[in-house]
C-alpha cells in the first residue's frame, strides 16, 4: 500500500483546528502510517505573480512530503489540489473524493437525519472540473443525513466564484464583495455548505450563514435555528492562533 500524507492546507487549520485533528484521527484509523504536513503550498505567491518565490515555497512543501516518504498526498484545500496536481512525483487525492471510498466514522452516519435544514451546496471554482470532488461532497452530506440543493445552473463545473479568488480582496474589496453577494444570491436556501474555509469566510462577510463540510461532519447537528460558527478568518489574530493550535493538535495526535 502507498504511503499517504495528509495536508490540511492553510485556511482550514486557521478556521477549525479541531476539525483538522478529527480528520487526522479518522484517516489514521484507515491508514495507520499516515503522515501529516501543515505548510502553505505557496499558492498566494503565484496568485500575485511571484513565480520565483512560489518555486521556492513549493519546493519547501515538497521537501516535507519527501521527508515523510509519502507517495500519495491527501489534500483538504482546493488550491493545494491544483498546485500539487502539476507535480508528477505524487498522486494527489482530494479528501472529498476519498471520503466516499473510505466511508465516514460509523457513529456519524445518519446523525443529521432529523435536521430541518436544506443546505445550498457551493462548489469551489478552482476545482470546477473535478467531478469526483463534487460527488464526494454530496455523498458526504447524504451520508450524514442532511438535505441539500444545488444553485440552479450554477453548481459543479458552472459554480461561480465566492469572491475570494485571485487575491483580490486586499486589492479590490468592493469588487470582491459584489462577487460574494452575487454568489450568495445564487443560493436557493439561506444556509450554504462549502468545502473551502475561505469560501465560507466570504459568505459570512456578506452576512450569509455558511458551514464548512467538516463543521457538519465533526460538529453538532445543525438545525434551521442554529447560528453559524463565527467568521474566524476575519480576525487575523484568531486565525493565526488557530493555526498554531492546529500545529499543536497535529503534533499530539501524531505522537
Amino acid at each position, binding site marked *: 500500500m502507498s504511503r499517504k500524507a495528509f495536508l490540511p492546507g492553510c485556511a482550514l487549520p486557521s478556521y477549525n483546528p479541531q476539525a483538522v485533528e478529527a480528520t487526522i484521527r479518522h484517516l489514521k484509523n484507515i491508514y495507520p502510517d499516515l503522515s501529516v504536513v501543515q505548510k502553505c503550498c505557496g499558492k498566494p505567491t503565484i496568485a500575485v505573480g511571484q513565480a520565483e518565490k512560489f518555486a521556492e515555497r513549493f519546493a519547501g512543501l515538497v521537501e516535507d512530503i519527501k521527508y*515523510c516518504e509519502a507517495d500519495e498526498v491527501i489534500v483538504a484545500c482546493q488550491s493545494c489540489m491544483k498546485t500539487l496536481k502539476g507535480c508528477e512525483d505524487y498522486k494527489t487525492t482530494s479528501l472529498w473524493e476519498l471520503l466516499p471510498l473510505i466511508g465516514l466514522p460509523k457513529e456519524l452516519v445518519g446523525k443529521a437525519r432529523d435536521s430541518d435544514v436544506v443546505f445550498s451546496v457551493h462548489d469551489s471554482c478552482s476545482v470546477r472540473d473535478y467531478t469526483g470532488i463534487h460527488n464526494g461532497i454530496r455523498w458526504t452530506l447524504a451520508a450524514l443525513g442532511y438535505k441539500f440543493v444545488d444553485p440552479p445552473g450554477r453548481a459543479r463545473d458552472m459554480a461561480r466564484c465566492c469572491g475570494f*479568488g485571485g487575491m483580490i480582496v486586499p486589492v479590490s474589496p468592493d469588487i470582491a464583495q459584489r462577487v460574494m453577494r452575487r454568489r450568495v444570491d445564487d443560493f436557493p436556501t439561506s444556509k450554504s455548505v462549502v468545502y473551502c474555509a475561505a469560501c465560507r469566510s466570504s459568505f459570512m462577510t456578506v452576512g450569509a450563514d455558511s458551514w464548512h463540510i467538516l463543521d457538519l461532519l465533526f460538529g453538532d447537528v445543525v438545525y434551521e435555528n442554529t447560528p453559524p460558527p463565527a467568521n474566524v478568518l476575519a480576525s487575523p489574530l484568531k486565525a493565526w492562533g488557530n493555526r498554531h493550535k492546529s500545529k499543536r493538535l497535529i503534533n499530539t495526535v501524531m505522537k
Partner: protein
Amino acid sequence: MVFSQTTLENAKAIAENCQGSHRAFCASRCPMHCDVIGYVNLIGEGKTTDAIKKIREALFLPGTLGRICAHPCETVCRRETEFNQPIAIAALKRYAADMADDESLWDISKKPQTGKKIAVIGAGPAGAQAAIDLAKEGHDVAIYEKLDVVGGMMRVGIPEYRLPRNLIDREYTYLTKLGIAINLGVEIGKDMPFNELANNHDAVIVANGAHQGFVPPIKGAETGGITNAADFLKSVSLGDKNLKVGKNVLVVGGGDVAMDCARTALRLGAESVNLVSLERMEELPASKHEQTGSLDEGVVFNLGWGGEEIFSENGSVSGIKLKECTSVFDAEGKFSPSFSENTQEISCDMLIFATGQRVQDVTGGALAQGGGSRYDADKDTLATSVDKVFVAGDCAGATIVVEAMALGRKAAVSVNRFLAGMDLKEDRDLDNEYSCETALDIPLPEDLQDLPRKHTRELDPKARIGSFEECDLGFDDETALQESQRCIKCECKQCMTECIMFNEFTQFPGMMFEAFLKDGKIEPLAVYSCNMCDQCTIVCPEDFKFAALFGDLRKDMVIANNGESPMAGHKAINMHQKLGFSKMFTTRKKGGK
C-alpha cells in the same frame, strides 16, 4: 515595462479575435450602424427617452425612418434568419420617436467655427446628413434646394399616407438649429450655375437624387395620359392643381414605387387600378407589407406580363397590349426578360410607368455619369474627378433613405479630410461608413423560442383610400414592450454578463487588450482584480484563457517591481507567507515506523 512574449501573444490573440467588438447583425447591416440592440432593449425596459437618445446618436430622422426605412437590418435579424419573424425594428424606432422625441434632447453642439464654406445641392436625406455632419465640424454649410420644400424623395416620392409631411418639417428643424442655411427654390444649373457655386465655396457636395422618371421604349408611348412615377408622385405631393387622375389607371412596375403610385391613384379617386409587372408574385421586388397594403385596398395585380403596345384614342392612352413574361432574368441572373406568344389587353385612361428613376445632371457636364446614370466617383470616398466636388445619395448609388444618409456622411468625412489637407483614404474605417458584414459567431440562446412578430395597428383599408391620412398607427405601449423584448441581443457579451470585474474596467476584453498593446501598459488594478475563476472562459465562444493572461501579466509586473506585487494591499501577504512557512505555524509528522 517589459512584458513576456507569452503575455504579448495571448493579448494579441484576444485583441484581434474577441467577438466583443463585432457588431450585431442588425447594426452591421444598417449603413448608419444605428445601435439597434441598444434602443430596442431600452424600449423593452420602458426607457423610451433613453431609447430615442440612443437612436439620435445615429439618426436625425427617427420618426421618418421609423415609418419608411426599408430596414435592411430586419432582413438579417436572427429572428428572421431562424424563424422568419424579424423584430419590428423600424416600427419600434417610430414608437420611441412618437413617444419621446423631445427637441430638448437634440444634440446641437458644434465644434468651433472653421470659417470654411460648404455648399450642398439637394435637401434630401443625403444632402441633409452631409450638411449636419459638416456643420457639427464647425463649417459654414448652405443647402441649395430646387423645390420649395425639404426632404427630397421622402417629400415628393414617398406618399403622405406613409409619411406625414409635418413630421419631415419638424425633424428638419434640426438642421436650422445647427445653423445650416437652407436655400429653398434655388435650382443649381438654372438659377445659379454650378461653376459659380463651386467657385464660391471651399467644397461642394452634389446630392440631387434621381428624379428623372424613365419610360421604356414601347410602341405608342408618345401619346397623352402617360406619365412616370417620379413626376406623378411629385405633382401629388406638391398639390398640383392641374393634376387629373384617370378613372382606370394602369401602373407598370413591380417595386415599392409602383405600389406607391397605385395606392396614390386610388386615393385620388381612380375607380380601378391595375398593376402590371414582369415579375410574378414570388419574385416581386416590392416589400410584402406594400403588396398586402395594395391588395387590401383593391389594386388588381397582373403579374408576369410585359408591355408590347400602347393604344390611344384622341391623342390619349386607351389601353395596353401585354405579352406574357416567361422569365425575367437569364441564366447568369442578368435582367433579360423573355416572353411567350400569349397576350392580353387592358384598357385604361392613365398609364404610369414606375420603372426606375435616373439622375439628372446639375453640374453642366462637369461630372461624368456612368452606369445607371450615377455620377462617376470613387466609391470609397465619393470624390469626383473635379477638385473639391463630392457626390452623395441616390445620385451616387444609394437606393433607399438610410443608404443615402450613409453616403452623405461618407462624403462629409471626405470633405473634412479634404479641408484638413489629409489623404482621403489613409487609415479610413470604411466598414464604419456603410453596410458591412459582421464576424459575429455566437450560439443562439439555448432556451430560445420562436415568438411571432407583433404587428402595428392599421387603419381599415376602406377608410384608408378615402384620404391621405397615415395608414399605419404604430405600436401601443404594451405591444411595443412585448415586441422589443423578443430581441435576442446578438452581441458577444458572454464574459461581460458573467464577470463583475471586466465591467469595471472595459466594455469587452478585446478593447482592454487592444489598448494594452497600443499603449504598452495596463492598469495594475485591473490585472489584480481578476478572481481567476475562469467563469469568463467557460462562456467565451473563443475559449480565451483570461485568467492565465492576467496571471502572466502579474508575473511581468512583479518582475518589474523587484519581485513584489505592485498592489499596496498585497504587502500583508509577505508577512502571511513568512508566518505560513515559519516553524511556529508549520509541522511535518512522518507516520509509521
